[in-house]
Structures are given as structure tokens and as C-alpha cells.
């Protein structure tokens, strides 16, 4: 094996009592795509942040091309040829592509020369790696996939030989993700080294040469991708055997519990986000809405749940209309048996500064069982919170702990427990497993299936196609605010991917 492009030796990093990285040893061969996989909180991002100079390791050594180096800030990392593409893009949205690329590498006081230089350099990179993007386009007007390409160009422009990508496909359509992978392969062929951080097993299998698995801050295994299986990796990640696909029987749908008709919703800027959408959700079935983030799914469920006003259309819950165009009160809808697990658990579903038990009643805080006159019945609230902790295996099992101190998966369980324990007739779930680790995903999926089998109507919104396909009895695909197709649970990924990208829709329109 050639000299490693990057070698990490005995890296340790702790935040207070928590070991984020413990005695990490890792060798990344040059000219390969090296995947790092692990659950949320396993320490992948911390490790890469140490490599890129955001954090300092408590101890250990980083070697690049065999030479030990010290990386104190991102600039040191850039100097030795390490580039990073962050999960959340670090672009100035109202700058052009070119301006973003030279940001931080402007050179002199006047921009003229560096812009000219960057332009010719971008053309070269474009040719070499197939990274086409209009250098004069404004970044915020580009689709997400192209924005990501700008991030990659930024790193390459700074002479990156080693490229770290942190969860790069989270915001992409399947087609965009495929395109990204082709670019990465091309970069590899040109001799670049790529480190791909992800929690999606499928991506690891599709593109990497080598894969390292992290669990609870330690590096538990490194495998050649060709010689391992998805099952083995999942087991290494979680530390036990997991069911990657929940088992479920056939749905027994009954009458419609929730009927949406011609619903149109605009966002605060007046842009139509949901455009005349109609569908039914029947008791005893899970209806999944697939789509790339930002195609109106969020606005759709917000309007149904009374969090956002619709422009027109109607929604009928259990035969009774909901005033979606007026002031539908989410509290009143809860009383009528409509439970809602919102997409954004940090800002909407939970108050992170609250104790766990305070979040266990959010939205149900005016129910009689939690009140004694105007006063909160603290004992009743905490008793209920403890019951939920037990039933949903929420850890750590302390209902007085601040909610921010729970991991993502456990925070999600707090919300699910709250919404499911109220025994609603209709459950609307947004991104139930976003940022949630494999072990908890299995649990959450089982619970959702159980709700269905109890005869509840479940409406599921997720950007994870795998999740939609695993859970849904019917799949609706949303594109540009419209439902562009309905498929059964056996629809292929390619078929749904095309619908999600609006391909069939566009052809039909022409």
C-alpha cells in the first residue's frame, strides 16, 4: 500500500464527560473513496472537524502524506490540500458562483485580477471533472445540487487534493446524488482522495472503495467495501443485529378519515407552494408523500394541522370540515384526534430549553388531566412523562433532564410518545427519522406500523425514499406543489425518482 494520504494516529477528543472520539486510528489511501459511516453522535463529524481544524484533538497525531502536521484552523488544512464540503453549505447566497469561489482567496484589494484568474481556473476544472456550472449565476438561484457543486469547486480552487464530504446527499434527489457520485468517481480517477461521511449504507456500498465504521466515538472496523455487506455494516454501526426493513402485513384500509380537496397554500412571500392538492387517507393505512425537500410537503402538512393558513381548498377530518383557510386552531384539532409530529423537532415539536416532562405535554397542556384549575398538576405530568419514557425506551430515563441533552433519536421519541399516547385517529408525521440513528429508526418504524394496524390513518412525509417505500401502503409523489403520481408500495426507486424530479410531469405538460 502506498503512503497514506491521511493518517490519524490515536486521536482523542472529549467534550466534558463525553468521549466524542476515543483513540481513533485511521489510514486513508491516496486516490480512493473512503467512506466513514456511523450513527448520529458516533463522532464522524467531530473527527472530520478535527481534521479540518474546527476542533483541536486532545491528543493524537495527524499525518498528511506521511508528515506529521498540526492543524489549528481551517486555513492550515487548506494549506496542506484538505478541502471540505459541509452538510450545510457555506455559500453567500446573493453572490455569484465566481464571487463565492474566490471568497477568502481574493488575493489583492482590487478583485479584477483574481476574478479573471478564477474564471480561467473554473473553466479548467469544469473540463477536467465535468463540473459544469455557470460562473456568473447567483448562488441562491441555483438548484441545491449545483450549489453543492460550487462548494466542491471552492475546495478544488484552493488546491484540495483530499476532499471531505459531510452527508452530501441529504438534500439531493436520487438523480442529483447519482450525478454527484459520478463526479466523485471522476475526481478519484484524477488522483484525488475523497472521504465520504454518511449514515446511509446504500451510498457506502455504491461508491466507496474502503469503509470505516464508527460507534460511540470509537473506530470499530475498517472493511474493503467489496468484501462486506449492508447487514454486516449495520450490525457494526449499531452493535447488534437490526432489521433494515420493518416487517408488516397487508393494510386493511377502511373509510376515509382525512380528505384533502383542492388545497392551495402560499408561503409568506406569496409563492404558491401547494397547488390544488387532493387526496384521502383512510383508517388503517399509511399514505406516504415522497418528494425532494422544498416541493410543498412541509406547507401541505402545516396547512392540514392548522399551523399555516391555506388560500383555498378544504380538509375534512372524520366527516367534519377543518377551517384550513381561516384560523384553524392546532389545539382544537388535537381535541378532534389529529396528532402531528412536525418536521422540525428542534424549533417546532419541542422546546429544547424545557425539561423532558414539560415537552411531554406540549400541545396537550390544557387537557384536564394535567391541570388543577389554573395550575399545572406537576405530579400527573411527571408520572405521564415517566410512563412514556418507559414505553418508548427514551434514554436517559430522566424526565427532569433538559430536552437539549437528549440525542436526536430520543428527542424524536419524546414527540412520538406524546402524539401517539393521546390515541389520535389521524397521525401526521413529518420526517420521523431525520437525523435519527439506525436503532431508533427501527423502533419508530415499528411504532408507525403498529398505529396503522390499530386502525389509525397515518400520513407520512419524508425525503428518505427508503422510508417512504418501507412504510407506505400508497405513495403519492409531490413535485412543485402538485401531486404528480400515485404508486403502490412496490414502486421502484427509479420510477419514484423520476417522478420526484418532475420528469414525467414535465413530459405530460408538453
Amino acid at each position, binding site marked *: 500500500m502506498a503512503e497514506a494520504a491521511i493518517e490519524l494516529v490515536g486521536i482523542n477528543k*472529549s*467534550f*466534558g*464527560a*463525553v468521549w*466524542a472520539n476515543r483513540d481513533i486510528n485511521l489510514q486513508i489511501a491516496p486516490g480512493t473513496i473512503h467512506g466513514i459511516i456511523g*450513527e*448520529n*453522535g*458516533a*463522532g*464522524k463529524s*467531530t473527527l472530520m472537524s478535527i481534521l479540518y481544524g474546527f476542533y483541536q484533538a486532545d491528543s493524537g497525531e495527524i499525518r498528511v502524506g506521511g508528515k506529521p502536521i498540526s492543524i489549528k484552523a481551517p486555513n492550515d488544512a487548506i494549506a496542506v490540500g484538505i478541502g471540505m464540503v459541509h452538510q450545510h453549505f457555506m455559500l453567500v447566497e446573493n453572490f455569484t458562483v465566481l464571487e463565492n469561489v474566490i471568497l477568502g482567496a481574493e488575493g489583492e484589494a482590487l478583485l479584477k485580477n483574481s476574478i479573471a484568474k478564477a474564471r480561467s481556473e473554473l473553466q479548467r476544472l469544469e473540463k477536467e471533472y465535468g463540473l459544469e456550472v455557470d460562473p456568473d449565476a447567483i448562488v441562491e438561484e441555483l438548484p441545491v445540487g449545483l450549489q453543492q457543486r460550487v462548494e466542491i469547486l471552492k475546495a478544488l480552487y484552493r488546491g484540495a487534493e483530499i476532499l471531505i464530504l459531510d452527508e452530501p446527499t441529504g438534500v439531493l434527489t436520487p438523480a442529483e446524488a447519482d450525478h454527484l457520485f459520478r463526479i466523485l468517481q471522476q475526481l478519484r480517477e484524477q488522483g484525488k482522495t475523497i472521504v465520504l461521511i454518511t449514515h446511509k449504507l446504500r451510498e457506502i456500498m455504491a461508491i466507496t472503495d474502503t469503509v470505516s465504521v464508527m460507534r*460511540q*466515538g470509537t473506530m470499530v472496523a475498517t472493511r474493503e467495501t467489496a468484501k462486506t455487506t449492508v447487514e454486516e455494516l449495520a450490525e457494526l454501526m449499531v452493535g447488534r443485529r437490526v432489521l433494515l426493513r420493518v416487517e408488516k402485513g397487508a393494510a386493511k384500509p377502511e373509510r376515509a378519515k382525512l380528505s384533502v380537496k383542492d388545497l392551495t397554500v402560499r408561503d409568506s412571500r406569496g409563492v404558491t407552494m401547494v397547488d390544488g392538492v387532493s387526496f384521502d387517507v383512510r383508517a388503517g393505512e399509511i399514505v406516504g408523500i415522497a418528494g425532494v425537500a422544498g416541493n410543498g410537503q412541509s406547507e401541505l402538512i402545516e396547512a392540514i*394541522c*392548522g*399551523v399555516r393558513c391555506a388560500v383555498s381548498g378544504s380538509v375534512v377530518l372524520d366527516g367534519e370540515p377543518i377551517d384550513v383557510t381561516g384560523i384553524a386552531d*392546532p*389545539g*382544537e*384539532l*388535537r381535541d378532534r384526534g389529529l396528532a*402531528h409530529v*412536525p418536521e*422540525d423537532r428542534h*424549533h*417546532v*415539536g*419541542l*422546546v*429544547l*430549553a*424545557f425539561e423532558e416532562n*414539560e415537552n411531554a405535554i*406540549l*400541545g396537550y*397542556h*390544557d387537557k384536564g388531566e394535567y*391541570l388543577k384549575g*389554573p*395550575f*399545572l398538576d*406537576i405530579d400527573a405530568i411527571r408520572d405521564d412523562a415517566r410512563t412514556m419514557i418507559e414505553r418508548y*425506551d*427514551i*434514554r*436517559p430515563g430522566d424526565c427532569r*433532564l*433538559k430536552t437539549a*441533552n*437528549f*440525542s436526536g*433519536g*430520543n428527542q424524536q*421519541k419524546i414527540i412520538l410518545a406524546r402524539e401517539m399516547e393521546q390515541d389520535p385517529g389521524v397521525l401526521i408525521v413529518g420526517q420521523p427519522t431525520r437525523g*435519527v440513528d439506525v*436503532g*431508533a429508526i427501527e*423502533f419508530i418504524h415499528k411504532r408507525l406500523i403498529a398505529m396503522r394496524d390499530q386502525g389509525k390513518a397515518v400520513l407520512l412525509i419524508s425525503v428518505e425514499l427508503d422510508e417512504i417505500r418501507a412504510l407506505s401502503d400508497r405513495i403519492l409523489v409531490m413535485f412543485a406543489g402538485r401531486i404528480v403520481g400515485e404508486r403502490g408500495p412496490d414502486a421502484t426507486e427509479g420510477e419514484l425518482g423520476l417522478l420526484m424530479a418532475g420528469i414525467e410531469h414535465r413530459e405530460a405538460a408538453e
Partner: protein
Amino acid sequence: MSRPYAKLPGWVDYGLIPIINLLVAFVFAGLVVLLVGESPLHAAAVLVEGAFGNGQNIAYTLFYATNFIFTGLAVAVAFHCSLFNIGGEGQAYIGGLGVAIVCLAFDRILPWWLIFPLAILGSAAVGALWALIPAYLQAKRGSHIVITTIMFNFIAASVMVYLLVDVLKPAGSMAPQTRDFLPNAQLPKMGWMLEAFGLSVRSAPLNISFLLALVVAFLIWVLIWRTKLGYEIRTMGFSPKAARYAGISETRIIIITMMISGALAGMMALNPIMGDQHRVQLDFVTGAGFVGIAVALMGRSHPAGIVPAAILFGMLYQGGAELAFEMPAISRDMIVIIQGLVILFAGALENMFRPTIQTIFASLSPRSVGLAAAKGEGA
């Protein structure tokens, strides 16, 4: 991966950090004293002596503290809803109108123990109504509460000047103030409490509104942490989106919270008017509304922190007055500078030393920072 959530033990958060902030403030205040050529240590001794040296001084300190408890609570309640009410000054000033109306109307016919509750209601109602207008504008029109409340301070001041000069002033009087209240509208002094410890309070104005302040502080704790309304206020304060999701009306909560806040500020008027001057004078609030902001910040919006913070500022007021008297080189303005430094370090820069202290604690004893040890485990 998110940045770990470091949490300091309670005694550091509520004890050590405020003390460090205070010490730094006093070090800078000491430098100011040095600059005018006096001994900082001597000045400090005079200040403490002036605030706590004898029964009368203690009584004055607590008298001032009473004002600051009310205004501190007013600011704190609004803080819990993420509203910055800097209109305490005006709400307290106009609250004096409520007190005046009750006292002037009933001091001939009712005993003090009937007038007192009526005056409490009067001051609270007028203060609440004064806060209602900015609250309505914020809730319905999106006018920023900071701007509107500060403007309402000026309006309140002008209204009170007009009323005292043209309406409430007895005919023939030269002074812009109401007539003196009869003894029925004067609050009983609380000298007996200190005299029980063998201290002499002489003419100090400490009165039973101090007890009222302590009771109200407890009631505010109950309101914020033990009632449904308090739960809704805190939810709105931390996350308006979560409140919307939970079916909590933003308009309703903003208006109710600001009215409670205004009522608390208004009740501050009871102390100087019924307890001390026995009439309504111009500018009787003397900045207590603004000091309330510092008190609320320093007390971390918790009644258990606000009461000691209010006593600290009472000490600065009373001890500062003594200091200006004892050491002529230190003028009244210097005292204001020292108070300003305390506000700066204890209030505005409250978080200045926190990151450093957190780092020190994290490295000294990782266990003590109380991180979620189970992070990354299980689910």
C-alpha cells in the same frame, strides 16, 4: 454533530458567576475612585457601612430594594415571553395615578387595610393598561415592543406632569404635587421588624410594601413555573413556532404577559407614594424602572435571584448616597458611574466570563458539567 451542551452546576451558575461579575465591577469602580484620589478600600467600607451599618441604613436599603423587586419582576415576566419591556419606568410612573385616585378618594372614609388592597388594584390596573397599548401594537401590528415601550415612558412622564400641574394639584398650591394623604392612606412602617433585632430605624420609610414585594415575588414564581399560563408564556418565549404548533395564541400571550408586566411595574408606585411621601410628586420613580432591567438580568429572571439583586441595588443606592456625603471628592455622579459599572458587568455583560468558566470546569472535572452521559448510546 451538534456542539455538546455544557451545563454548569447550579451554584456556579447562580452563585459564582454573579459574584465574579460583581467583583470585576467593583474593581473597575475602585479604579474610578483611585482616579479622583481617594482610597477604594475606604470608599467600599463607607458604602457598605452606609447601606448596612445601622438600623436606619438597613431600612433605607430595603426601602429602595422594594422598588427594584417590583420593577425587576416586571422586566423578568416579559423576558420569559422573550419581550423586552423597557417601559417599566413609565408604567410605574403612571401607576402612581392609580394609587393617587384610590388614596385621594378614600382616605377620609376607609381604614388603611381597605385602602391598601384597593390601591394595589388601582396601581396594577393603570400600569397594566399602560402596557396594553404597546402590547397590542406588538401583537397585532408588529410594532417593536422596545421602541413603543420606551416612547410610552415619555408619554407617561408628560401625562403625569400635566395631571400634577393642572388637575391633581390642590388649588392655591405652588408645588406640582397632590395634596398630602391623610393617615388612613399611609402604609404602616416596618421599623418594628428591625427593632426586634435591637436596631433603631428612626424615620426610615421601610413599610409593608416590602412584604408585599416578597409575596408578589413568590406569586410570580408560581405563575411562571406552576401554572398553565406560565407554561404558555415560557413556550412562547423559547419558541414562537412551538407555541403555534401547540395551539397557543401569540396575540393573547403577548398581551397578557405585557399586562402582567405593566401591573408589576405599576405596583412599584405603592412604596414611595403610600409608604414614604404620602403624596404623588413629580418624578417619584427616579429611574427604578430602568434599574429593574439590570435587576432582572442579574437575577436571571428568577424571583429567587431578583430579590437579592434588588437588595444589592438598594445597597448601591443607599450606600452610594452615604458615600457621596462622607467623601466629598466622590460626587453623586461618581455613584451613578459605579452603579452603571455594576449594571454593565452584572447585567449587560452577564455572559462575558461564562465561556471561560465553562471551559475551566469542563477541564477540571468533566463530571461536574453534567453532560448527557448516555449521548450516542442506545437510540
